[in-house]
């Protein structure tokens, strides 16, 4: 579920969000309507949901009663499995004792804290309002409240800092024993403040070579600490702590997206909602689903996605009859020879070095 509200726009973020919180009540009403309408379209055969993810935006800025309303609405409209992973992304400043206790009570099992960094230089470069101590406090408060799966989001590659600075940042993170760590290489995207600065040559960005070193050093460090590097940018302390929600994207399992600009997938079709809060609300207020677009995937497209997503995750993808016709064996051999992928038991998977070329590998190994 996409909660499109933030207190302010971060200079590097290209996700859709607005900072006008006055629209929250209208959005919530529309969202509840969408939940009810969507539930009617779900096929009989649809299994129980085993993951609910509130992403953003900044879902943690929603008041407790709103979050409760959303969860109640979901539970009354959909079949939710017993061990459903229920996750929320949170700004460290939102995690008070009270909020943490509420999240636990409401049934959230996983909280991802947007720490971004524990290095004050990086935090201020990224234009964040919190400090390192706020993130540390948030993790401790969540832990005390009984949240068992805590994730930290980190960003590296800012300000041309050396590998050593990144490793001490990670060391700080690891000392909090989070179950999950996401390490995102800072990406300068069009339509962001950083994008504008970079186009004017006024943003210090790392070279591909430097990013590569940061990536490899970070991976090595975290693996040494016992984390599993299970996706390009994601690490988990154990299999069960991997993000069940995100794995659905990478394994091409069905998901239902709710909220403005959310995407849904049923195995053969993908569709997406109106991008803006206003457009989204207007559709639902008029009694329509806020559909913006839809695509029916051909066999080749499905296979290509399967391969592209599979090459981002440690478990890789299976060379089954759906995939096989599109595979170029020579390309596979070349990538094996270069140590970028492994192939065992008809499973192709990227190596850690291979993660660095996850966007390239699908081109190399397909016809």
């Amino acid at each position, binding site marked *: 579920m996409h909660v499109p509200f933030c207190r302010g726009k971060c200079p590097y973020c290209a996700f859709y969000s607005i900072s006008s919180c006055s629209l929250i009540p209208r959005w919530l009403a529309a969202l509840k309507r969408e939940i009810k309408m969507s539930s009617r379209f779900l096929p009989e055969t649809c299994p129980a949901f085993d993951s609910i993810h509130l*992403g953003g935006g900044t879902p943690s800025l929603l008041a407790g009663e709103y979050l409760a309303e959303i969860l109640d609405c979901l539970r009354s409209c959909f079949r939710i499995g017993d061990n459903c992973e229920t996750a929320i992304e949170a700004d460290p400043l939102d995690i008070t004792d009270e909020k943490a206790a509420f999240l636990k009570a409401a049934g959230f099992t996983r909280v991802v804290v947007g720490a971004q960094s524990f290095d004050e230089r990086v935090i201020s470069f990224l234009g964040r309002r919190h400090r390192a101590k706020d993130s540390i406090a948030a993790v401790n408060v969540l832990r005390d409240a009984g949240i068992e799966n805590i994730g930290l989001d980190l960003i590296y590659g800012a300000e041309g800092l050396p590998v050593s600075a990144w490793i001490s940042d990670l060391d700080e993170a690891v000392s909090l024993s989070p179950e999950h760590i996401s390490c995102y290489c800072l990406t300068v995207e069009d339509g962001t403040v950083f994008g504008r600065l970079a186009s004017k040559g006024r943003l210090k960005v790392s070279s591909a070579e430097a990013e590569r070193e940061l990536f490899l050093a970070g991976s090595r460090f975290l693996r040494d600490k016992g984390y599993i590097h299970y996706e390009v940018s994601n690490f988990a302390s154990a299999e069960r702590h991997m993000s069940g929600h995100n794995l659905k994207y990478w394994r091409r399992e069905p998901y239902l997206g709710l909220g403005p*600009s959310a995407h849904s997938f049923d195995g053969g079709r993908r569709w997406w909602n109106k991008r803006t809060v206003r457009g989204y609300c207007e559709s639902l207020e008029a009694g329509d689903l806020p559909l913006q677009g839809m695509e029916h995937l051909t066999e080749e497209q499905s296979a290509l996605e399967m391969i592209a997503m599979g090459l981002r995750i440690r478990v890789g993808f299976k060379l089954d009859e759906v995939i096989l016709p599109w595979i170029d064996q020579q390309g596979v051999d070349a990538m094996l020879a270069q140590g970028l992928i492994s192939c065992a038991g008809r499973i192709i998977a990227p190596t850690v070095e291979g993660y660095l070329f996850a966007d390239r590998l699908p081109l190399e190994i397909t016809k």
Partner: protein
Amino acid sequence: MTQIRNFCIIAHIDHGKSTLADRFIQKAGLADERTFRDQILDNMDIERERGITIKSQSVNLPYRSSKGEEFELNLIDTPGHVDFSYEVSRALASCEGALLLVDATQGVEAQTLANLYAAMEHNLTIIPVINKIDLASADIDRTREQIEIDLGLDSSSALLCSAKEGTGVDAVMDAITEMIPPPSGSPDEPLKALIFDAHYDNFRGTIVTCRVFAGKLKAGDIIKLMALGTTHKVEEVGVFRLKRDARAVLSAGEVGYIIAGIKTVKDTRIGDTVTLASNPAPEPLPGFMEVKPVVFSSIYPVSSDDYRSLADAMEKYQLNDAALTFQKDSSAALGLGFRCGFLGLLHLEIFQERLEREFDQSIIMTVPTVMYKIVLNSGETLHVDNPLYYPDPVNIKESLEPFIRTRILIPDKYMGAVMELCLSRRGVNSRFSYPTPGRIEIQFEMPLSEVIYDFYDRLKSTTQGYGSFDYDILDYRKSDLVKLDILVNGEKVDALSQIVHKDRARERAVHVCDRLKDEIPRHLFKVPIQGALGGTIIARSTISPFRKDVTAKCYGGDITRKRKLLEKQKKGKKKMKMIGSVSIPQSAFVAVFKTDEKEK
């Protein structure tokens, strides 16, 4: 016959030739504003984009003059490039007069001058017309002065018009009727008609465009093409009025078409004389010449599977391009293809573009080359137009390459720069003349191989567009030639080999290595590119590998975008040629013989 006028329009690119032609067509009532598809005479996309006419065309315009007399004006549109200079000369030979069109905002330019000289050689009556007088920046007095001084024409007879607005167009048409003499020649003499164009029609076969100089011609006649000696039975004659307009007879003085069951354009020759088999002319019209290809290049399908489809396209293409020659060819790197001969580099480029656009072929062309003569120690002489067949240097006694005489016409202030350019291209025996004050004609003897890549482009940029250029083939001269090979990732790419003069080998090798470095995308590994003479590496460049190619985040909303990008990249990759494990884009093969923007 007294009411016929045959004329052409001489103009620099963009001076409004096509717009004026459109006006004539409208005034003649052949098409109204709405049926106009832009500019009718230039009806190939490529012609319109490049602003040049490639094929000669003609249109018959009925016109009632302001004095109430009825005329038939034949406008003959001529190609505007040195590659097609023979076609131009035949089209000019079919006219009695020419409109010299000058843009009042630009004044006289180089091409105007070169074309004017060609028209004068054919003794055409020249009518200067100053166009675009409606524009605020028009400087009529200055343009008149240039016509007087630069062109040596009487500017008091110059007409003013705006083809765009239609002002002055009637006066121009009246002037054509009053100033250009009617054709001479008797309809009672044996038939003599000059072929100045031929094109292929899916239903009727080859349609020959000609100017009748003597005699007459009708359906049912048996005609003889004098140079070829072939005979055909005439099915239809007529004139072009945007579409074919059949006539009972074509007689002396007229311009029109002949349909005579001629299968392909190859069965006709531009410049040949048509006569009647039963009552042939004693001798053909003067000036016939067999046009021979001077530039050779191989083409290959990007995907070897497409060879059949390329072969079909070539067959069809050839129906309409008599100047193109081709035969089968094969390369270790690129597979089966064709070795083609062209009139020049523009002809080659047009061929490539049309094959891609109109026939939907993805092709790779190799470096264009000229025909060399290689004398072996055994005494045998080889004609080599393909680096693939360049003999082992130990067997070569001597090499010869074709030389041309270039005629370059420029404003005299560019003399230094143009001299430098010609000397750098191994020009020798220069001669100068001053046809008009402020203008200089430079003649050089140069190897043809030095002008086929980019000489014209360089000349134009050196002279800011004022240089015009023309050449004749002279003879074969001794030369010190070597074969330059290109290695990509250690593998020799035979399709990139070229025969070059020894003194130019290093320069060319560096150029090729640099261009390939820009054109070949990064790979996951380092790709070295080398230029070699035999076993000696004389130039190198390296494409550094990707260090990283991954986006940090890929979640629900990113998947569609990611897949679309992949689909696009895959399409691009399919258009590339695999040499070993390196993908080389089509553009790389062309880029190696193109002038660098930054070098210009």
